[in-house]
């Protein structure tokens, strides 16, 4: 006996484009759910699968999924059955997806809890000065990235830090074997990295866009994940309608083509990927930060020089030559929130990436109808040229100009 996930091969989404042409207000939500449920119940493939499963109970087919209301929306049923019955179901219903479930081995998190209490001082916030935010705020700029949600695919976020209270819209872990994101309540940081990154996106004092909501995807618990976790995490982020930007600072050294397609598809569904290039220095980059399809981010220091560790170089893929990073942002001696409270100064393209994500959110706040390609153009065309080689600085230092 094994556990199987059974559902119609074709999603209702593929046939229900008319459903999305209306407002998704809470008032119309219930009628929409009823309409989707009704469509599902009328689906001949769904009817056939349900009948088959019901008729097969005598052959050892056991329903596991109990939430019928949920099943009515997704058409997915979890059943336990002998492998030969699963084969029979596949033969009888070619339009049914019958996927065998697998157990997942947990990667144990490593925690580094700081109990110290600290506070941040104005001179520490050089990263906000370098990108023009401090001056803009002094001149009355009120942008905060309100109504923008960023999916942060990282180690998780500590939402209790004063910089981040009320800003974490949700947290999810990923189960590759069941191919689903599961709510993590409450949100936690499994390693510490994600809390520092989140602070730079939306922290009250240290953040670029304090009005942004962060959806935390724990893609690399304890700092370790797999390629398959990455693909699931990107699929999850890409299918969350509220997400506009994906911020990620993880990768595999070298150029790995497998992730490129799924990254490109983020653009197809209107999401901006902002990825770190890596901390390996010249001519050494990581995928997916070195794909042409992403906004790739390098790091500079307080002197506006590209940090020696910041990855960059010229790449050739599919007969195209291009350079990474696309742009740079502060990534040396950058103060942000740390798990458990307080602040620390860290170095890395991981620090530069959320700063660029925050600027993108500010542009989105000002131009909510902007397309993802125009958003990329806005980010790149308003950079400050630092007069360094393009394969070190890209277009230059990201600036708030486009959002003002």
């Amino acid at each position: 006996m094994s556990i199987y996930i059974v559902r119609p091969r074709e999603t209702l989404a593929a046939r229900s484009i008319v459903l999305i042409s209306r407002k998704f207000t809470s008032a119309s939500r219930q009628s929409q759910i009823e309409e989707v449920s009704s469509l599902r119940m009328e689906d001949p493939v769904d009817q056939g699968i349900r009948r088959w499963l019901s008729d097969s109970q005598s052959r050892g087919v056991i329903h596991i999924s109990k939430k019928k209301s949920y099943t009515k929306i997704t058409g997915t049923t979890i059943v336990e059955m002998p492998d030969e019955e699963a084969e029979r179901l596949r033969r009888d219903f070619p339009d049914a997806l019958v996927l065998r479930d697998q157990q997942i081995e947990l990667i144990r998190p490593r925690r580094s809890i700081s109990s110290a209490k600290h506070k941040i001082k104005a001179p520490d916030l050089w990263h906000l000065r370098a990108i023009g935010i401090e001056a803009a705020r002094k001149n009355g700029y009120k942008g905060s990235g309100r109504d923008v949600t960023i999916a942060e695919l990282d180690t998780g976020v500590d939402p209790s830090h004063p910089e981040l209270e009320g800003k974490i819209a949700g947290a999810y872990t990923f189960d590759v074997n069941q191919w689903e994101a599961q709510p993590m309540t409450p949100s936690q940081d499994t390693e510490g990295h994600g809390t520092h990154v989140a602070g730079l996106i939306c922290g009250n004092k240290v953040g670029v866009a304090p009005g942004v909501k962060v959806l935390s995807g724990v893609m690399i618990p304890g700092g370790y994940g797999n390629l398959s976790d990455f693909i699931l995490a990107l699929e999850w982020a890409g299918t969350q309608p509220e997400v506009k930007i994906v911020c990620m600072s993880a990768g595999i050294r070298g150029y790995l083509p497998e992730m490129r397609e799924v990254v490109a598809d983020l653009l197809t569904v209107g999401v901006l990927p902002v990825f770190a290039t890596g901390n390996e220095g010249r001519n050494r980059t990581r995928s997916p930060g070195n794909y042409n399809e992403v906004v790739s981010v390098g790091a500079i220091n307080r002197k506006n020089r590209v940090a020696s560790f910041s990855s960059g170089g010229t790449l050739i893929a599919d007969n195209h030559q291009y350079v990474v990073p696309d742009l740079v942002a502060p990534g040396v001696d950058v103060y942000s929130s740390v798990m458990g409270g307080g602040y620390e100064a860290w170095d890395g393209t991981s620090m530069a990436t959320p700063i660029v994500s925050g600027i993108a959110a500010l542009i989105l706040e000002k131009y909510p109808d902007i397309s993802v390609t125009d958003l990329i153009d806005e980010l790149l065309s308003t950079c400050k040229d630092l007069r360094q080689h393009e394969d070190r600085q890209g277009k230059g230092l990201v600036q708030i100009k486009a959002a003002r």
Partner: protein
Amino acid sequence: MKLEERHIKKIDPLLRDALRDAKGDEVLRAVMVLGPQGIDARKEYRGQELASSQFPSHEAYRKALIERRQSELVHDTGETRQALEDLSLTLRGGKISKTVVVEGSARQILASLELSGVRHASLDQPIGLIEPRRRGDKRSKK
């Protein structure tokens, strides 16, 4: 297992080595890109943009993009997905992308490389945090 040149062209060195060393029934997990060779992904999406101003909200716009992509994928990768499942391989993913995670015996993964709809495959492998330098001595104290 013995690999031919046509197999090696489609796979990364890690999967090549894993398949060479594997017994036929050993279970492997691979990441596969489905669809024809040589697609410029950026070109593919550039020609398809919907204007967000056509929709009542950005969420509705994003939902339209997601659903259209899912619909396209049913058309573009449906046959290959079916063929992979017919090989008793377990497929996961591919909701908005032609990239899927495939698990099954080494023998069947090798057989799947014969499918014209399997463009490239790689062994599932660790992905690392881009580790920053954390300087505790730079803490700002109260």
